[in-house]
């Protein structure tokens, strides 16, 4: 029987290095810049706004790393959860500061990775675009949970920590969100 490996936070080494020398924060920045930017883009639907949010998140994180409470995670990274909590706060502040004008929905599924079969690629892209159009109509918490689960590939526990909910509540939220998507697709089949 194999022994269960000890809990290990994937970013503990990099976080410890950044605490000792802030210039080493760049490793964490490079690793997570796309994830934070992507989440901000799904939330704001505007590239420039997403860039602004990303900039604020990493500047806050750099300044906050010395006080960051590294608890160690059973899976994934405590640092990543902390980074997304900062992102959530920055987004909330931005929304409070200026009432966001509803922009045109971002076509989130425009760039589905291609396959060798162009016809299949087009069909898959259309189907995915349709599903993400339905997601766009969901309440914020359901939409956000799906983005964190499918795009950022966070576990239910991590999403719970980012959104301030229990792991069980997040699972139920995602289940209901996907049921809503299924209802919205109305029995469409590939």
């Amino acid at each position: 029987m194999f022994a269960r490996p000890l809990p290990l936070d994937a970013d503990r080494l990099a976080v410890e290095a950044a605490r000792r020398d802030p210039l080493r924060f760049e490793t964490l920045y490079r690793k997570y810049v796309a994830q934070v930017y992507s989440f901000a883009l799904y939330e704001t639907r505007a590239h420039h706004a997403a860039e602004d949010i990303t900039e604020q998140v990493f500047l806050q994180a750099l300044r906050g790393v010395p006080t960051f409470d590294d608890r160690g995670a059973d899976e994934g990274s405590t640092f990543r959860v902390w980074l997304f909590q900062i992102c959530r706060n920055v987004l909330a502040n931005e929304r409070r500061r200026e009432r966001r004008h509803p922009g045109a929905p971002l076509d989130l599924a425009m760039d589905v990775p291609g396959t060798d079969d162009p016809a299949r690629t087009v069909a898959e892209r259309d189907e995915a675009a349709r599903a993400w159009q339905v997601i766009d109509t969901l309440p914020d918490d359901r939409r956000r949970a799906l983005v964190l689960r499918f795009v950022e590939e966070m576990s239910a526990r991590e999403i719970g920590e980012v959104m301030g909910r229990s792991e069980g509540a997040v699972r139920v939220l995602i289940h209901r969100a996907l049921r809503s998507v299924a209802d919205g697709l109305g029995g469409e089949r590939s």
Partner: protein
Amino acid sequence: MAMSDEDAAIQLDLYLEQILGGAPTLGGAPTLGGAPTLGGAPTLGGAPTLGGVPTLGGARLVDPIADAGREALEDDRLAEAVRRVSVGASRYHPSFRFEERLATRLRDTANGLELPTDRPGVMVPFPPGGVARARSRHRGGVIVGGAIASGLSIASIAGAAALVVWRRARWERLV
């Protein structure tokens, strides 16, 4: 017996973990040849569990996770929704220009920060499998914000170079 919402949510979550962890099939047949995994942890050899409850017995001994997935997704419409959402879940990358500009700003800020002097040393275990394994397992598409602009720039430079070569060759022939 019908599952409660919470049970159905747990089983769906296990199924999503299976898909996002890189399982090749969507509710497909159990794979005896390869080791089925849940978030990278082998589930054969150890005691298979389903939400913490051992599921030894019958077909579940072979692949309890795939079984859980199939149960959770008896509703074909839900399975189809999961498939489409998963296919369309693209991650967006900022433009390289933005990434580098922010990196420079972070370096400048870091240079202005005071180094902590009173923090004692901490022993940190090295990640099993190295740093590469700890990186993101994202399998979806990645769209780079500056890709189109960069492509155009490269095309213009290449075009100008080709024009110069052609004109020089033509001039040499004339002379």
